[in-house]
């Protein structure tokens, strides 16, 4: 369970998050909807402790990340996979090494065990056989999939997706959306999906929130008017 309680954040005079509260239960996907530049990425990074907040707190299973030191934050982060908006794949490493890195760094798995695990993940994300490719030779959509794969490496309980479908063609978008749904249904991954795409929000969200001008509000029924107005 992740609880975000009264989190506020501003950059100079720009108020990005204003008393934001919500929680993420087990095996549930929370969608945060909002136009570009409203602070969705800032919110995700604040939850991970990457961006310090001005006030409020974030609790992981009751433990506040504002109250613990860096090594404990690192421990908590191992339970969260983060799919960056721009994928943030390591461009000096091939697909295999990208996905293997967290496993190599955090477990004592042997080389062959690591490889097996990566092959397994590639199967889940539908990228089998692409181990040797480098990010630069992947399409935008394939990079997204690999980024999801890397986020899965440590078998995290939560997955955060930052605009997972932005800029993808319809076919790739469906693939990513289906993967997100699958990961929840088959592997019980809870998480947060941040997006400005209504269709993605409707397809994956168990609960949908709207973030606008720093305020968050629960959306009961999506209508275009809600979004635009």
């Amino acid at each position, binding site marked *: 369970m992740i609880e975000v309680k009264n989190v506020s954040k501003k950059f100079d005079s720009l108020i990005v998050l204003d008393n934001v509260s919500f929680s993420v239960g087990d095996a549930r996907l929370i969608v945060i909807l909002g136009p570009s530049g409203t602070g969705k990425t800032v919110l995700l*990074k604040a939850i*991970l402790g*990457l961006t310090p907040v001005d006030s409020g707190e974030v609790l992981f299973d009751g433990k506040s990340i504002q109250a613990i030191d860096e090594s404990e934050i*690192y*421990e908590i*982060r*191992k339970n*969260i996979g*983060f799919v*960056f*908006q*721009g994928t*943030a*794949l*390591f*461009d*000096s490493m091939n697909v295999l090494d990208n996905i293997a*890195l*967290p496993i*190599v*760094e*955090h477990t004592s798995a042997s080389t062959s065990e690591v490889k097996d695990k990566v092959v397994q993940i590639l199967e889940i994300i539908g990228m089998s056989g692409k181990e040797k490719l480098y990010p630069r030779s992947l399409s935008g959509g394939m990079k997204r999939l690999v980024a999801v794969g*890397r986020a899965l*490496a*440590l078998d995290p309980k939560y997955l955060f997706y930052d605009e997972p479908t932005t800029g993808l063609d319809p076919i790739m978008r469906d693939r990513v959306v289906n993967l997100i749904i699958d990961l929840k249904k088959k592997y019980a991954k809870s998480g947060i999906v941040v997006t400005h795409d209504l269709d993605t929000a409707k397809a994956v969200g168990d609960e949908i929130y709207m973030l606008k001008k720093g305020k968050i509000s629960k959306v009961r029924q999506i209508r275009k008017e809600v979004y635009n107005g």
Partner: protein
Amino acid sequence: MNLFSLIGDFSVFFFRSLFISWKIKTTKWRILEQVYHIGIGSLPIIIVIAIFTGLVSIVQTSYQLIGTVPRYILGTTLGRMVMIELGPILTALMVSGRCASSMAAEIGTMRVTEQIDALEVMAIDPYRFLNLPRIIGIFIALPILTVISEFVALICGAVYAHYFLDVPFSVFNYGLTHYFYAKDFFGGLIKSLFFALVIAASGCYFGFKVKGGAKEVGKAATYAVVTASILILVLDFLVALVIFG
């Protein structure tokens, strides 16, 4: 940022990169990769520089000394010049040009494409993952490169003296070895260890602090080389004061 807070920030960054848990099991491969990358990558240019350093020094020295002192002094002088000053300094400046800039560009690019954030999110300390191997890698590679360049420079000087200045190998060698002080050689090496630290620290620091895009990455590479070069010369003076002053 004013100069003092920059120096403070730079020092904190440097110590934060070294005084962490090394996790040597995975880090050792990353260190070796850097030693290889820095060492082998810089070797050709270092050798070219060393050849000409040796030749220029012998020509200049003979111009200044021949006729006034015994000829073996040529070997003594060249040896000292190369071991104390020219070898460490020129090698460090060359490596700084190559490596401080490429470190800053590489890490800076990782910063702007959020790859450093990605490390943080995966609970991998980017200071250990990126900075530590570069600092240790160059700390190992630079003294080795320095010794190689000194060796090459002395050989070239000796060959030139033998064939063009009428100073046979035996005479040159007498001057070189008979008045050899271990302090000269090791003093030079100690300098190169300090130089290694500032090269890696500048490269990593300016890369890490990049905010923005491609243009800022380019600037970071420039700052890294300029800072490293200045610090190399300042340290050269300070270490010289302590060891030879």
